[in-house]
């Protein structure tokens, strides 16, 4: 050991060239010029983090006790706030990192409705978290099987979060978003539009009437054309390429936005290349609920 101590003394007295400080600072500065790139990466990172929140859920449902402890009422102001309650779930192990905020509705005066919707959300999130955990497990196995070590494996971040897009005494609309960061980060959204008064989940026919398909198809087609004309970088698949060719039925994804308008949603890749992201179209017609 003392041999090496001597060597360390020699090592520590290696002369530091005067230019070092300059070289280091200039290199850092030059690489700051790529800030645009960095922002992009950072945004991606932010999305991934958002997604990560979702994963926690699956575990929660399976481990009821710890889950129950994590259950928290969301403090909200006024009547609207009381309708939502949030369960938070966190899990961290060597395979994955889950953070989930799972909404449930309450105090609607219709416990059947609450049970049904909350059960639906729970099952959905459980299923989604199970799948995500399985993917993380498979990914870990693949890393280890190909000669990697646990140091090469970055735990998959799974994120579940929700957003209330519209709420009044009769109607509540919210979206749950799940994200995962693994080799390919991706995101999924689940939409809930609930008629509290009548105790049912709403579809497009309920909110736009019998003529819902023509209303949506015309509006989406018009807006796609507008967006293409606005910016040549806006690209949508043609109908031949699997682009938009009219909605299939009244169960098309949508939410009610803060203007109380229907907003139809197409997931990434659904009607446009991946870089276009999730596509939203507000339908100007008043809703009939």
């Amino acid at each position, binding site marked *: 050991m003392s*041999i*090496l*101590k*001597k*060597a*360390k*003394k*020699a*090592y*520590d*007295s*290696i*002369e*530091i*060239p005067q*230019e*070092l*400080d300059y*070289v*280091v*600072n200039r*290199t*850092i500065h*030059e*690489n700051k010029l*790529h800030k645009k790139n*960095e922002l992009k*990466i*950072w945004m*991606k*990172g*932010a999305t991934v*983090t958002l997604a990560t929140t979702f994963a926690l859920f699956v575990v929660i449902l399976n481990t009821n006790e710890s889950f129950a402890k994590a259950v928290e009422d969301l403090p909200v102001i006024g009547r609207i706030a009381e309708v939502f309650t949030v369960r938070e779930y966190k899990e961290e192990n060597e395979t994955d990192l889950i953070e989930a905020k799972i909404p449930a509705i309450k105090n609607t005066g219709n416990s059947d409705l609450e049970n049904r919707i909350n059960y639906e959300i729970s099952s959905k999130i459980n299923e989604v978290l199970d799948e995500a955990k399985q993917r993380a497990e498979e990914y870990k196995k693949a890393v280890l099987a190909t000669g990697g*070590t646990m*140091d*090469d494996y*970055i*735990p998959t971040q799974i994120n579940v979060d929700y957003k209330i897009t519209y709420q009044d005494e009769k109607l509540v609309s919210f979206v749950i978003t799940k994200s995962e960061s693994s080799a390919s980060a991706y995101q999924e959204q689940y939409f809930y539009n609930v008629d509290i008064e009548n105790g049912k989940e709403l579809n497009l026919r309920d909110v736009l009437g019998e003529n819902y398909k023509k209303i949506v198809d015309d509006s989406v087609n018009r807006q796609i054309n507008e967006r293409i004309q606005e910016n040549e970088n806006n690209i949508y698949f043609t109908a031949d390429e699997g682009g938009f060719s009219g909605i299939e039925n009244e169960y098309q994804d949508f939410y009610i936005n803060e203007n109380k308008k229907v907003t139809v949603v197409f997931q990434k890749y659904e009607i446009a290349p991946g870089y276009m992201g999730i596509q939203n179209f507000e339908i100007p017609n008043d809703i009939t609920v």
Partner: protein
Amino acid sequence: MAHVAREVLIEYVKENQEKLYRIAYTYTKNQEIALDVVQEAITKSLGNINQLRNEEYVKSWFYRILINEAIKASKSNIYFVEYNSVENEIHSNSHENEVVEKLDIYKAVQRLDEKLKTVIILRFFEDLKIEEIAYITKTNLNTVKSRLYKGMEEIRKSIERRNI
């Protein structure tokens, strides 16, 4: 997160630039090349900062990049590296004999095979934990330990040879 990680990395590099240079120098044995290695490692790490998932690992992660660059450079420049420049670049106020001895040991470290050299530098010069070294070298604890042992053996042998 990459945003935070970037700030952490920049701060780390600025604060530890002398350490980083010494590591690079121990591989390249040449001032110019060592500076290049440091520069290259900074550029690479900033460019790939999004691969770093946890800024707590900034140090280990940067070491890994730096050492890879240093090994790469020492290989490609193997023919025109000046071994004897070391003496000029090491200062000491102590007695000449001691200086010579320290230098000899240091040179013995420099002459080690890369794998052995890396663990010796990180463990004894940089004072890293075995676990960190395993992470940086993408090996496991036992491999690191056995390389440390072998490295020490070789240094001792090379000192003994000189003393005969």
